[in-house]
Structures are given as C-alpha cells and as structure tokens.
C-alpha cells in the first residue's frame, strides 16, 4: 500500500474514528447502566467514565512504574534481587552532589515561570495585539529541545575578553563595556542560564493556562471591585488571583514537576558538565550509558516519591473545588 495514502487514513481513524468509538462506547455503557436500579447506577457510572482514561494511564504509566519499583530492588541487568542496595547507592553520595542543582531548579524555575507567566497573562489580556504576543510566547514551546539548545548555545556563546563576541548576551555586555561571562561554564551562573532557557521554552504553557483562567474570571465581579475603589493591583490580588488559584496551582505543580524531572535541557546543552548535573540526567546516564537498570529504577522511584508532597497540596485544592 502506498505510504502517503496511509497518513490521511490514520488521521481519520485516530482523530475521528476512535473518538467516535469512545463516545459510542460511553453511550453503550450508559444504556446498559440505565437498566440498573438507581443506586448501583450511581455507583457504577464514574467507573464507566473513568474506564478508558484510567485504563490507558494504568497501561502506559502505572504498569511501567510498578515494573520500575520492582527493578529498583534488582541488580544492574534486572536479573536478581539485591534488596535496597540501589537505594543505598542512591543516597551514598553518587547522587548527593546533583541534588543541590535540582533544588536550585525547584526553587527558581517554578517561581520565575509563574511570576513571568502571570505578568504576561495579565498584561497580554489588556492589549489588542494579544494573539500576536501570545503566539510569540508559545512559539518557543513549538521549537524542539535540540533546536532550542542550538539557539541558546549561540546566545550564550563565549569568547575571552578582547575577542569579538558571537554570543548575543556577551555581545550586549561588550557594548556596555563589560567583560564577557562564560554563561554555561561558571558554576551556579550556568544552572541559572539553563533555568532561563527552560523558562523561555516552557512559559508558553503557563501563559496559556493562566490566560484561559483569567478570561474566565467573572467580569461583573471585577466591575464591582472597581466600583468599590479597587485599582488594577488590587483587582489582581483580591479578585483575579483568588479566582485563578486553581490554575495557578496547576502551573506551579506542572513547573515543580518539570523542575524535578528536568532533563532535556541539561542533557542537550551541557550534559551535566560544569556542575550543572541533575537527577534525571543521572537517570538517563545510568539507564543508557552505564546500563544499570537497578540504579536507574531507584532514581525514578525516588523522583516519584519526592513528588508526593506536591500531589498532596493538590488534593487539598481538589477537595475545595468539588465542594458544592
């Protein structure tokens, strides 16, 4: 069969056929449910609806996670059980030196992203060229990591003082008569530089989420606040922010998790050199370079566990959300 002919077929199948089937299946399930008495019907309905989403998640995420938990107690080739040795290894210094970087990421990345995204979402909302501004901010998200790394390597490129600077930042510094900075090499500065790349790449998502939340804040409520004498700051802090709190939490959570498992940027830009290493990069290294499944699994499990506090905060929020 002609390959190019396959593509439209696949798209039709996946984007129309399967959704239709999903809907049909729900309908069928509902029809079966409606035969049941009301009590069981109410009890079973959520599971009917959650069947597909949860099933898929179970297959794609839960199953591998379980396998991973198991392998985390096995040796490098996942052939024999070795108890908690992998965890001892993980906490024995091999990884401790990268945790500092992850903490830097955890503290700075979510906050910077959130603050910048809030500013962007709020201010874009006030200008008529919002679609354009939005597009530009989302654009980096559309650029692949590999290409993003190339751009930013150029931006950060460094030549010793005295020679012409090819890197944008250093060229700007040069214009102001300042010495060049080895952005990607000087410890801490380089992690900050990487964090900034991540902010640049990912802020689009945050702006998108916050923007749609802000647009959903009741206009009348804001008008009432205006009449009550609230200025723009007040309106933001007393009206908009409390009402978009769920979305802020979504962004914060997403970004914290992104910081926890940050990998691509570090991998493609420095591969952890110059003291920029992070946990997930270690995971990648153990998995594909050192080929040690046990170590890699232990790191993954530690990552999963460290996300639990974030998840718990979200549960508290969830409970307030669903309260009638």
């Amino acid at each position, binding site marked *: 069969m002609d390959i190019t002919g396959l593509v439209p077929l696949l798209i039709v199948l996946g984007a129309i056929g399967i959704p239709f089937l999903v809907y049909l299946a729900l309908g069928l399930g509902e029809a079966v449910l409606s035969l049941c008495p009301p009590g069981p019907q109410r009890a079973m309905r959520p599971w009917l609806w959650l069947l597909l*989403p949860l099933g898929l998640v179970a*297959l794609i995420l839960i199953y591998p996670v379980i396998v991973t938990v198991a392998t985390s107690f096995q040796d490098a080739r996942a052939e024999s059980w070795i108890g908690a040795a992998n965890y001892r290894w993980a906490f024995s210094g091999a990884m401790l030196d990268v945790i500092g970087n992850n903490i830097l990421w955890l503290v700075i990345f979510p906050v910077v992203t959130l603050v910048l995204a809030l500013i962007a979402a709020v201010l874009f909302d006030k200008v008529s060229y919002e679609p354009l501004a939005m597009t530009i901010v989302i*654009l980096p998200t559309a650029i692949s990591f590999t290409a993003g790394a190339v751009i930013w390597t150029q931006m950060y490129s460094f030549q010793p003082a005295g020679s012409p600077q090819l890197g944008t930042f250093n060229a700007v510094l040069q214009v102001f008569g300042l010495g060049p900075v080895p952005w990607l090499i000087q410890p801490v500065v380089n992690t900050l530089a990487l964090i900034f790349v991540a902010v640049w790449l990912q802020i689009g998502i945050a702006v998108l989420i916050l923007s749609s939340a802000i647009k959903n804040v009741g206009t009348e409520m804001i008008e009432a606040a205006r009449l009550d004498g609230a200025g723009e700051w007040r309106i933001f802090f007393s009206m908009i922010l409390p009402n978009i709190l769920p979305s802020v939490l979504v962004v914060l959570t997403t970004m914290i998790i992104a910081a926890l498992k940050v990998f691509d940027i570090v991998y493609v830009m420095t591969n952890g050199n110059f003291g920029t290493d992070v946990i997930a990069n270690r995971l990648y290294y153990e998995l594909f370079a050192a080929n040690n499944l046990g170590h890699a699994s232990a790191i993954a499990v530690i990552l999963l566990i460290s996300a639990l506090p974030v998840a718990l905060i979200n549960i508290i929020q969830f409970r307030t959300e669903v309260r009638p």
Partner: protein
Amino acid sequence: MSKTARQSAVPLSSHGFIGLAADRVRGRGHLRWLVHAVVLLFVLFWFVPILALLLSSLRPQAETAASGWWMALPRPAFTATNYMLAFDQLRVAGSLGTSLAIAIPTTVLVILLSVIGAYALVRMNFAGRTAISLLLVALLVTPPQITLVPLLRLYNLVGLSGTIPGIWLYQVGFTLPFGVFLLRGFIASIPQELFESARLDGASELRIFRSIVLPLSRPIMASLGIMAFLWSWNDLLIPLLFMGGSSLPPPITVNLAGLVAQTTQGQGPLMAATFLSVLVPLVLVLSLQRHFVRGILGGAVKG
C-alpha cells in the same frame, strides 16, 4: 485585528466582550503606556532568540561563521540555500505526513479522554476519587525513560510495536494525567445549575457531556490541544523507539534532530529546518487562539 471584531460579528454584551474592550481603552494614560511597554519588552525578549534563529537560517554560511546573527541587520546578506537544503533533508513530504499522523490523533484523543476523565472526577461523587486524583498528580512526575522498556516489551507481545496507533496510545496515556489535572479546575468552575438545568431538560449524562461540558470547556480544551500537539509534535524518543520497523518515514523532528549531528554544511540548514518544523504548530496555535474567549459563562446564572 481587534479581539472584538475577530470574536464574532454579533455585538457582544457588557458581560462579554465589549466590557473587555472597555477595559482596554480605559485607564489612566501613563498606566496604559506602561502596560504596552512591559508587554512589548516581554514579547521582544522572547522574540530575540527566535529572530536570531530566523536570521541565522537566512544567512550564508560564511557570514554566520564570521559574525553574530545581529550583523545581518546592518549588513543584510540573505540566501535561501539553507531552506532548500533543509527542505530536502527533512524530507518534508513524507515526514510531515508521519508527524501529522501521530500528532493530530494524539491531540484529539488527549482532549477527549481528558475531558471525560476530568468530568467524571469533578462532577461525580464516588469513593476513591480523591485517591485517583492523587494518583494522577503523582504520575505526572514519571520520567518517560523508565516507561520505555516495559512498554516496548508489552508492545512486542501484543504486536503494537512499529505501529502508529501504538504511538498514539503511548502519548495519550502519558499526557492524560496532565490533561485531567488541567481540565479539572475549569470544569469545576462551570456553575452546578447548568448541569441541573440540563438534567431537568431530560439530558442524559452523555448528553450533558456533549452539550454542556464540551462547549463550555472550549478555552481550556484549546489550551490543552495546543500543548498536547506541541508535545506530540516535538517528541523524539517515543516515535523513534516505537516506530521501529514501520514503513512510514520518521517524523519531522527526528530528522531535525539528526541535522544537529551532521558534520557538513554548518548549522544554517538546521536553523532553517527548525523554522520549517515550527510552521505547522504555528498555524495550529494561531487557529486555536480563536477559542480563548472571555466570559464564556457570561449570562448563565444570576448571583
């Protein structure tokens, strides 16, 4: 292009878009300029790297090698060579097809299943829903790398490896927790009365889902759509791994990543290729922005 004009030909009410327009024009003069200034600065800052990319993709290799991209502004010397090379090397025709065949169904399915999941989670009361929410958030942190081997094994077992639907399955499953997580709050903010009203009108659960939840979640679905599409479009590892043995050409970003490693022709073609590969998502972002409407719930309930 004013927002109001774009939204709809119907004049919209104070509770809808006109109010917004009013918001936009009012305010003290200097404050307005400050807003514009900050927005422009922001946009500019975000645009500089992209501009660098664009200019670099247009400059001849010799120029790029000798001077920074900004020199293209005072000393414009442009060439389309990079684009011709890139066009050729990305094998645009075939790869574009594969990319679309992966990203479009993935996006649609992520949206659909996320709304379904979020709706059930928020609007139905049952034991275990807190646990499920907790699980979904916790799963957000799963490093994709650790899922690869177990799933590959599973896929081999059931014969999914090397197929495009296998990739949909993976990407949808992997993005779903985020989708549900994202939509949850939005669906919770739809006034309860609308569901009740629909119920009294005789709507079944499914009908409510189709006629109330789907249309009213439009803005956030559009956001999720953009994200899901971009992630799927830019995904490298999964298609590479799960398409092994497929007769389809590799997706466009796989080819793009390959350009980074090649040792001839400099980076011009890579820059150009990046631009080409961004075109489709760009069109998507632009077209979905139409759904970012303000006050979609305006006029629904009093109080």
